[in-house]
């Protein structure tokens, strides 16, 4: 074995073997076992180890699973779009108008996120509730007569809370991408007769695309599997796939079905993320 690799390769492999072994043992093995488990079935208390597609058939035949998956993806896509759309102007403001205080601005953006994630989500329940902060404020100002009810215990609440929780994960990558833009390109576009709007769409936006794509992926992938937010502010209409997975592993005591749901959602998220990256590549090539 040692003869196959030169000294440099051996040193590198020796160093990387510990982290690689750790991940192999605690990531690759568990994920493979999860896939295997999804082909087994739970028979009350005993685990039937014959390989079948029954769990996947079950997922296909009960519309509730498809509904939860579809809802999870739609909520995540909405969260991603809204978060990126709101974060972009913020990042743009810091990058172009932040002057010497950019670091301070970034610090200011991250402060609200330095307390418990659970509490940050929970606070939205207090803000959006029937007698919540928002409703009592709006009623106090006589903007509304009746408390707004469409903002808590449904998917809107999930979207609002997640768009808040993931904001820094969009602002920071987009800010970095905007900072990298060579300002002389913008001046050149201006000198060559582009108006501010044209200049924005022809120079700024395409050059910021890598940051936008990165933040979209960073937000989309974990939010599809979010468990806390739908459970806390989603009511029954806002429940997502992770809640169902958790139920299968606890109350329903059907780990194989839970594993099959986890595998299905993982594949789905993977495909969407790949599609996203692919579209982005094509778009960038067309630009070039």
């Amino acid at each position, binding site marked *: 074995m040692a003869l196959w690799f030169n000294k440099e390769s051996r040193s590198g492999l020796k160093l990387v073997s510990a982290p690689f072994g750790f991940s192999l043992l605690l990531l690759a093995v568990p994920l493979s076992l999860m896939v295997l488990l999804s082909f087994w079935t739970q028979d009350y208390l005993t685990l039937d180890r014959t390989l079948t597609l029954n769990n996947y058939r079950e997922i296909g035949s009960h519309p509730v699973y498809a509904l939860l998956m579809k809802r999870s993806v739609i909520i995540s896509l909405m969260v991603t779009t809204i978060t990126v759309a709101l974060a972009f102007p913020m990042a743009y403001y810091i990058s172009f*108008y932040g002057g010497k205080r950019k670091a301070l601005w970034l610090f200011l953006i991250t402060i609200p996120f330095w307390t418990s994630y659970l509490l940050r989500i929970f606070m939205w329940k207090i803000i959006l509730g029937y007698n919540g902060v928002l409703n009592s404020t709006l009623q106090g100002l006589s903007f509304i007569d009746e408390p707004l009810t469409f903002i808590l215990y449904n998917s809107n609440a999930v979207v609002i809370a997640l768009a808040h929780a993931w904001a820094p994960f969009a602002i920071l990558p987009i800010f970095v991408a905007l900072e990298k833009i060579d300002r002389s390109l913008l001046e050149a576009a201006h000198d060559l007769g582009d108006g501010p709007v044209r200049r924005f769409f022809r120079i700024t936006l395409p050059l910021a695309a890598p940051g936008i794509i990165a933040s979209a992926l960073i937000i989309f992938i974990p939010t599809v599997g979010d468990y806390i937010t739908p459970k806390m502010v989603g009511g029954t209409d806002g429940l997502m796939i992770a809640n169902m997975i958790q139920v299968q592993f606890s109350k329903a005591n059907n780990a194989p079905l839970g594993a099959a749901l986890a595998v299905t959602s993982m594949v789905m998220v993977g495909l969407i993320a790949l599609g996203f990256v692919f579209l982005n590549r094509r778009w960038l090539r067309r630009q070039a």
Partner: protein
Amino acid sequence: MRGAPRTFTIFVGLYLVFLYAPVLLLPIFAFNDSAIIAFPLRGFTLDWFIGLASETTLIVSVQNSLLVAIVAAVLSTCLGVLASRASARFDYPGKKPIMSFLMLPLVLPEIIVGVSLLIVLVQLGVSLNVWTVILGHVLICMPFSIAILLSAFNNMDRNLEEASLDLGANRRETFFKIILPLVMPGIISSLLISFTISLDEFIIAFFLTGTDTTLPVYIWSQLRFPSKLPGVMALGFIMLILSLILLTAGEYFRKKSARLASTETTLNKDADHG
């Protein structure tokens, strides 16, 4: 630089209100003399903070969380140092796939990581406790450690390492006396980031914790009881203040490392001129 258009500034102001709304309400209700979380406010009190001190389950869960976060941060940073050093310094077969594999938890929903680990541990008959949580947390912290440490190792001047070897230090001495001090700011920020991620992680802890509660699991259990809410607000406010102190310390180290790097480049430039 011209100022921003008025509408733009208004947008930024509103967005900041949105970002700060939840966190500003924390101290308001934490100091409010009422068991009900609603306006109008009643008056000022410190009872909720004082009450926290007598919550034994809270104290136990804080101890558990600190143990988990410290061990997870140290382990993830150690593994991160090995992986980053290997990739920054050496070429070895399969480098790209191995490194992407190590970064994989970054793009996996945490529930998947938690569930798959749970399956293995249950199949092996391992009892769930803080140590099983630590395993899960090391896994999700490692990509962050690697990302930070890789840039630290890549920014390090290779010549310094070679100079040390040329001047007679052996590999061991070179690593501990030259390389490690140079990447120390990276190590510290990796420790801080991993510590913070682990301290706030709920899903994996929820799945793998058994009867040992961590702080987020404790908070989750308290949120069901309306009477516990003001205490939880006080707890959240304390966490915010402690995080800010930690963050400022981290920023201090980052700035210090930036200064070190800049003196280093000036030294190099001087050497070039000389």
